[in-house]
């Protein structure tokens, strides 16, 4: 589904990604973890071309990301993204937020989009909030709406960039619950997160990133059983001592 092949990226003289390679199959739930500033977010944003990269290549369902021929719009329709700060369009109602891209980008029939949007809102428990503006919703509700907005494009893969980092602990749970259900339904997911509990329960694989390199790439069970690099073990111990 997604292939990362020796991806490199620099900001000036600072190399953020030092040759990252990985293969993510359909239906896999991959959690990307690692210390702050390690390049996790940059890596995931390279996949839908929100960030450019200078070396290597990424393929999403056979489409090369770093290519002049690539239709970025089509690429992004395949890969839904959820941001740390939700980024619901503040001037549009929740329903309009969800319906905007299917209408403008995919040009689907309005009635079908509306029905689909309402189904998605029901799924994330927000059907009664359809006509409200983002400001009237709590952080957790906004993030669930943002997930629905990404799902409205019927993506093949969902990318999450620290989806719960800006939320209160109680709200973290309601968002993780939606994500867990999504994983159970077989959605291919790649998720940058510090929620090790979620990773333990839901992830099929862990990518541990440190200083721009994928240090570990192993099944979640192995990772949490300690069959991973020393660096990752130290990280896990620290996370265990400092929950949240």
């Amino acid at each position, binding site marked *: 589904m997604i292939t990362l092949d020796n991806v490199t990226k620099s900001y000036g003289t600072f190399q953020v990604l030092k040759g990252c390679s990985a293969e993510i199959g359909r239906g896999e739930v991959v959690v990307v973890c690692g210390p702050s500033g390690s390049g996790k977010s940059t890596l995931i944003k390279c996949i839908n071309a929100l960030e450019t990269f200078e070396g290597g290549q990424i393929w999403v369902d056979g489409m090369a990301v770093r290519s002049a021929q690539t239709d970025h719009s089509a690429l992004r329709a395949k890969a839904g*993204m959820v941001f740390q700060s939700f*980024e619901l369009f503040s001037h549009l109602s929740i329903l309009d937020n969800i319906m905007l891209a299917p209408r403008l*980008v995919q040009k689907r029939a309005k009635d079908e989009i509306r029905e689909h949007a309402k189904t998605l809102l029901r799924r994330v428990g927000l059907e009664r*909030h359809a006509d409200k503006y983002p400001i009237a*919703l709590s952080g957790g509700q906004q993030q669930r709406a943002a997930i629905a*907005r990404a799902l409205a494009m019927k993506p093949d893969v969902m990318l999450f960039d620290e989806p719960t980092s800006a939320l209160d602990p109680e709200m973290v749970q309601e968002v993780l619950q939606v994500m867990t259900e999504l994983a159970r339904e077989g959605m291919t997911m790649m998720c940058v997160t510090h929620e090790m509990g979620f990773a333990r329960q839901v992830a099929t694989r862990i990518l541990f990133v440190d200083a721009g390199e994928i240090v570990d790439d192993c099944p979640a069970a192995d990772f949490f059983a300690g069959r991973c690099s020393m660096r990752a073990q130290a990280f896990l111990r620290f996370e265990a001592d400092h929950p949240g």
Partner: protein
Amino acid sequence: MQIWSWHGFFTYLGSPYIFRGALITVYMTAVSMVMGFLLGLLIAVMKRSQRRLLSWPARFYVWFFRGTPLLVQLVVIYAGLPKLDIRLSVMACSIIGLTLNEAAYLAEIIRAGLNAVPTGQIAAARALGLSERQIAWRIAFPQAFRLIIPPLGNSVNGLLKTTSVTSVISMEELMQRSQILVQDQFMVLELFSVAALYYLLMTTAWDFLQRRIEHYAERPYRRQQQSVAVDPIELPVTTQDAR
């Protein structure tokens, strides 16, 4: 000679000649503002462009039209165009001058608004596959517009009075007509007071209109009537869908 003539004051206040001058002032302001805004939007977008072929002409435009007096611009248009065999009415010349001049200032206001749209909103739109054009019209412009309503209001208010500069090319708007009548009976104070009153009336009307526009644009950002639901557990449906 009398110091102040109430009779004169009220005669001029009720004068259809002065009233029509005020209507001309409103007309020139409205047309120049709308056209100046559209031109300013174009210039603001060009100035923000990464391509120098676009940004440099825009920078030159703003530099030139903010750096020279409107009075000079009007005279150059009025006296210059006929030499190129372009014959336009005084009204057309006035509106062209006001539009070109106003666009330079509006471009900077619009640019500030576009810069203030959170980058995350743009990234989210990109991530959904929207084209740059769609992002501009659906996300950036609407959000920027809300932010720049107060300075745009300043511009409209200023322009209402700046239109009086067109009297230099003999445009018969409110101020010019007042000055013409001064020649008649030399009631300077009475006439200028009438003119001032008209300007106050026009700017006050604009104040009300601006408040309506602001109220409308702020609708998505008002919390009241939307009732913030903090509780993640869905409660039974109540009558809170007030809008």
